[in-house]
């Protein structure tokens, strides 16, 4: 009997290993190996073109990155880009969810229409907005000048004082539906009795929103805000498509700096060092998320 149980346990274990093997292989080959390579390259002199560059670099790559004149501006831009995008997406996504949660005629149409920007591929969205915002033939400037709102066309993506705000705006436009769909799903799960009870206690719409709706959205808000903090901070394609980090580095962020190290300067060591720094920061964000999430779960469970 014991021997039979042991044999069954061994077979179960073998089956579990075999069943998980595909996932392990993929994780090891597609995530583990590149990750380890990046960490190793960060401490190595590694250049794609210059074969004379090789050997252990110590912290030289990190020193090169941190002393780069574009590093601190890129850090600042990454923070502005990330926080600006996530705050804007949150506010507009929540407002849209509140509106779409009301019973109005054409509710279905408005819900579908709201999600359209999120369905547009990033490259298509970026290029379309780039043409719409063009100072010479873009429709936005045409409307602004014809209606007399501005005297001269605004070079939204070519003027340093406008460029970052513009790419954040376009990113918000494209990403807020993700927040809306998440908040809307959470709102529809809030029992109607809670709102009725609050109304009977004399709570107005504003008070009901803050005291009934918002606490019920905490969990979903936490997830999407932290996910988007990481997604936005490491996003490369949106800014690359619209400004390539310009004009004159006004919108350069850390992922674009990594691209420039690797595929313009071919300095894999520096690119890996900066990638490692970003990995550490995004991991810290995840740790913070995990702790906040656990505290919130404890509160909800009581």
């Amino acid at each position, binding site marked *: 009997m014991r021997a039979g149980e042991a044999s069954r346990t061994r077979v179960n274990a073998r089956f579990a290993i075999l069943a998980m093997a595909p996932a392990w292989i993929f994780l090891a*080959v597609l995530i583990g190996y590149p990750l380890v390579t990046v960490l190793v390259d960060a401490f190595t002199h590694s250049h*794609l*073109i210059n074969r004379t560059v090789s050997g252990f670099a110590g912290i030289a790559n990190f020193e090169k990155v941190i002393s780069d004149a574009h590093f601190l501006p890129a850090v600042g831009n990454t923070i502005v880009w990330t926080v600006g995008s996530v705050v804007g997406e949150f506010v507009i996504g929540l407002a849209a969810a509140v509106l779409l949660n009301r019973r109005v005629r054409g509710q279905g149409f408005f819900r579908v229409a709201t999600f359209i920007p999120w369905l547009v591929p990033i490259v298509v969205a970026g290029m379309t907005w780039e043409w719409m915002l063009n100072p*010479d*033939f873009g429709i936005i400037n045409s409307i602004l000048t014809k209606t007399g709102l501005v005297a001269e066309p605004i070079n939204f993506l*070519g003027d340093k004082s406008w460029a970052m705000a513009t790419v954040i705006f376009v990113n918000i436009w494209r990403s807020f539906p993700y927040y809306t769909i998440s908040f809307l799903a959470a709102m529809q799960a809030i029992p109607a009795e809670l709102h009725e009870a609050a109304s009977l206690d004399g709570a107005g719409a504003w008070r009901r929103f803050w005291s009934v709706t918002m606490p019920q959205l905490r969990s979903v808000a936490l997830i999407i805000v932290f996910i988007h903090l990481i997604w936005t901070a490491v996003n490369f394609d949106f800014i690359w498509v619209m400004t390539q980090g310009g004009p004159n580095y006004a919108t350069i962020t850390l992922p674009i700096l990594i691209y420039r190290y690797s595929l313009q300067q071919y300095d894999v060591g520096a690119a890996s060092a900066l990638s490692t720094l970003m990995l550490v920061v995004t991991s810290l964000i995840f740790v913070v998320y995990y702790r906040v999430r656990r505290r919130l779960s404890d509160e909800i469970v009581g």
Partner: protein
Amino acid sequence: MRKKLLVTAAVVSAGLVALTLNGCSGQSGDDAKTIELWTSWTEGEATAKALDPLIKKWADDNGYVVHQSNFTYDQIHEKLIASAAGGNLPDVVWGLPEYVGEFQKLGILADVSKAWSSWGDAAKVSDAVKSAMTVDGNVVGFPYETTVRAYLVHDDLLKKSNVAVPTTWEDVLAVGSAVQDATDSSFYGLTGSGVRSPQELLVYLAQEGVDIADPKDGGGYANTWNDNPDQLAKATEVFQFYADLMHSGAVSPNSPTYGWEDTDENFATGLTASFVTGNWLAERESSNPDTMGDVSIHPIPYPSDGKPATYLESKPVFVMANSSSLDASTQLAEQFASEKWQRAAFADRSALDDVTTDSKWTKDFAALQDTGVTFPPISLGEVTQNMQDALAMVLQDGKSAREAASWLGDAVNQSLADSGDSGN
């Protein structure tokens, strides 16, 4: 049942491993009768329609299978550099002249000098084009598409402004905002950012007689501006020309951030009255017939104490050195540059002097080929970024022309040192 599951899981795992490993290798050239070809044409357009059957026929005649994949040039560039690091390359590749130096340093280009010597059409190619295919004394490609830049003018807009076609920088600056005032279109155009802005800057530097990097006696390249006051003065004049274009009102105030898409669109729609660009604008005659009917083609204005120059873009088709079908790959590459294939697919942009059309877009451009200049065969990724940054110093940050020229000289030398192009 359990045994069945175990076997299924084992088979799936083995299959996934095989798929993964297969994805990591990918070199089809292991099969000596297969040639992996990377091109960059627009699917369904005339070039693709003309070349597709020719490639198939060549493959059938020679007993090869040609696996053709289509990418943008940027994709080809990045994929080749990544593939070179992994030792996993195709056989024949369409490239840009800017890639010659980098790919040669990577050691991935086959030396096709011998094939060039015995190539029947070699005598029909200009020295400038052959020079663009040559690095370290070796020919590394065949020219499949060749164009130069010219100065395009909307005659009606200049006539309306009572302005003659300028031939020198001084003429351009003297016009100032006269065309803008009379027609609401900018007079001249400049590209302040993106891939075309370093090409424009290279031409203006060549017109002043200075190079972005010169070969050194002991090997390698260097920018000599900061060691040579005369060179620095000439480079400064170029940046001053850019600054003066802005201050005189000859160009749009938005020019500092224009890329090639903006500048070509502005010229095609008549928002810019004159501009230095390529003969691909010919296709805009059909898309913008109202504004493109009055276009005339001229040499690019140059400084009165300088010389004419234009940007020669002769695109090489490369053969990869590690190709397992090296001879056949070289033959295929040669075919792209051959008279038959050039007439079929590149009649309006051929390096062969007897392949041409009657269109002004071919003849008037070809007439400028002798003054063509190209980038030196160095790694250009960071150097061209340096050139854009120097332009931004003058056009966006208000720095002086001398400051920008001096900064660029040092920045280029740093980039050459980083890429190993400085020699020692």
